């Protein structure tokens, strides 16, 4: 009897579905790597993946890598270069098709905060955060340069904010064509995949709208867990449940069960 699919697993599968075969893709550590390698194991065998450290051609062995230089991802690479190469020559250059990034906070326009939580607006003076987080890492570079990004986040009201405390990685900024002010070569986030569903940007305003929900969630639950007045996109609907082959592929990749603990 198969263990039932967890919310984290559903999020990983839904994220993996965003990756198309043959794409040049960059995965961060943790959930985003699991989602990416699930896609490769399932429907995108020709995905060309890299880490932001410049590890190419590798697939994780022995479980979820602890980090992007972890020996679990360095054991079978075909090339090791550098951060400047991966994040610069391949991502910030505009060559990378898709990047998956995480978010501690994400807002109406897909801006991501992974830097810190302040109690209210920071104000004019840059004061210490109440809770310091991990910083931008490579996500800012991916958010600026990748043709599209997929944001993964646990769907909680405090994380889905009207406005993030700090923009670590730009989404659509104030919406509309605000990105064009900065000349970003990348297209911005194409989806926010969460533990409850999927949000996608309105083509004009770039406000994120609810596009789909899982079998175990629904519009009301999602709206209740979103810190802005989340609109439902025309054409929104239920997201297909994981197939057996999807779940099997994901669990082969997630051999240490990182996604089944949560």
């Amino acid at each position, binding site marked *: 009897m198969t263990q039932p699919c967890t919310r984290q697993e559903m999020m990983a599968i839904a994220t993996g579905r965003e990756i198309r075969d043959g794409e040049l893709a960059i995965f961060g550590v943790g959930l985003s790597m699991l989602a990416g390698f699930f896609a490769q194991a399932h429907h995108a065998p020709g995905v060309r993946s890299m880490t932001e450290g410049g590890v190419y051609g590798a697939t994780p062995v022995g479980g979820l890598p602890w980090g992007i230089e972890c020996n679990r991802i*360095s054991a079978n690479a075909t090339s090791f270069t550098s951060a400047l190469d991966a*994040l610069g020559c391949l991502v910030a250059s505009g060559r990378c098709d898709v990047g998956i990034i995480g978010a501690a906070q994400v807002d109406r326009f897909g801006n991501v905060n992974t830097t810190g939580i302040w109690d209210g607006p920071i104000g004019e003076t*840059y004061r210490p955060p109440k809770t*310091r*987080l991990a*910083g*931008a890492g490579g996500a800012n570079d991916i958010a*600026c340069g990748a043709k599209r990004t997929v944001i993964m986040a646990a769907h909680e009201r405090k994380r889905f904010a009207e406005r993030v405390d700090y923009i670590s990685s730009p989404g659509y900024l104030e919406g509309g064509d605000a990105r064009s002010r900065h000349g970003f070569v990348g297209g911005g986030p194409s989806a926010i995949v969460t533990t409850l569903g999927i949000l996608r940007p309105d083509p004009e305003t770039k406000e994120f709208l609810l596009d789909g929900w899982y079998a175990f969630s629904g519009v009301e639950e999602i709206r209740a867990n979103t810190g802005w007045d989340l609109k439902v996109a025309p054409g929104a609907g239920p997201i297909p449940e994981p197939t057996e082959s999807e779940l099997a592929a994901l669990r082969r990749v997630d051999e240490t069960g990182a996604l089944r603990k949560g």
Partner: protein
Amino acid sequence: MAPSKLIPLAEAVRRFTWDGMQYASGAALPIGSDAVAFGRELLRQGRRDLHAVFHCNSQQLNLLAAVGAVTRAECGFSGLEVFGFANGLRRAVESGRLALDDYSNLAMPLRLLGGALNWPFVPATVNVGSDIQDRSAFAPGEHPARAKIPTVTDPFTGRPVGVFSPLKPDIAAIHVTLADPQGNAIMLGTEWSRYELSRAAKRVVLIADAIVDTACMRQFPNLVRIPDIVVEAVVHWPFAAWPQSSPGMYDVDEEHMRLMNKALATEEGTAQYRRDFVDSYDDLDGYLALIGAERRAALAATQTAFLLDPYRRWILPAEDVAALQAAGETA
């Protein structure tokens, strides 16, 4: 043949570091190659008021920050990847004791490249348009922070373009897999930004897991991305990145990673960690004993061990290294 640059770790810290210096290390990922042992020695010698330039935080910066030895830091990433937030660094930042200026993981190597090339600035196509550009912990009263990533006009298109300030740290302690006594180094695994750092820093000290004969470098010159001419000194320190990993050499010590980060979450835990794992050994043998023979064997049984195979025959035995080190110390 150039003379040996091998010196003991304590001697390297005595010779090349001082309070208030701009100190770069962690030129690898939060859980990967980093001269963590160099940071322990900095604390053993009581260095303080450091301005840390770490491409990414690592357990080294986490420890230095927890102890209060760092007052300013510049980073692209300040967590510990799957091991979570870096509790020591986090406490220091949240309390206001440490001013942390944020960049991204591309911005840091670009700034080091700019330092390496002695450029006045480095074009920025990332970090612009976010709070990384608008907020500076080094100029907290300015919003937007005008001097952090200012703008120039591209003369080819007339468009505004952000520019980064280059970095030239006073000293870099760079972890490498293999070094020869002259300071030629081979890194296994991603370079991350160790190449750029080795050229940007005013002085470079290598911390090598193993010392090899120079014949190894002549067989694999394309692997020698850090040549001796940019290196001041070489320190031989097996398991120098512990509890982090060194591809080809040893895995991450998951248990100690968690123990360490948990300890650094409090003042008391930090003091205890310092007693147990910083001030508790007298020399390399004592350090290795602290990790323990059994644990070292387990960590060295890494799936990446095959990466080291082509170079094993040139690894110098401990007695040869000791002899060279004695020569280097008096040089």
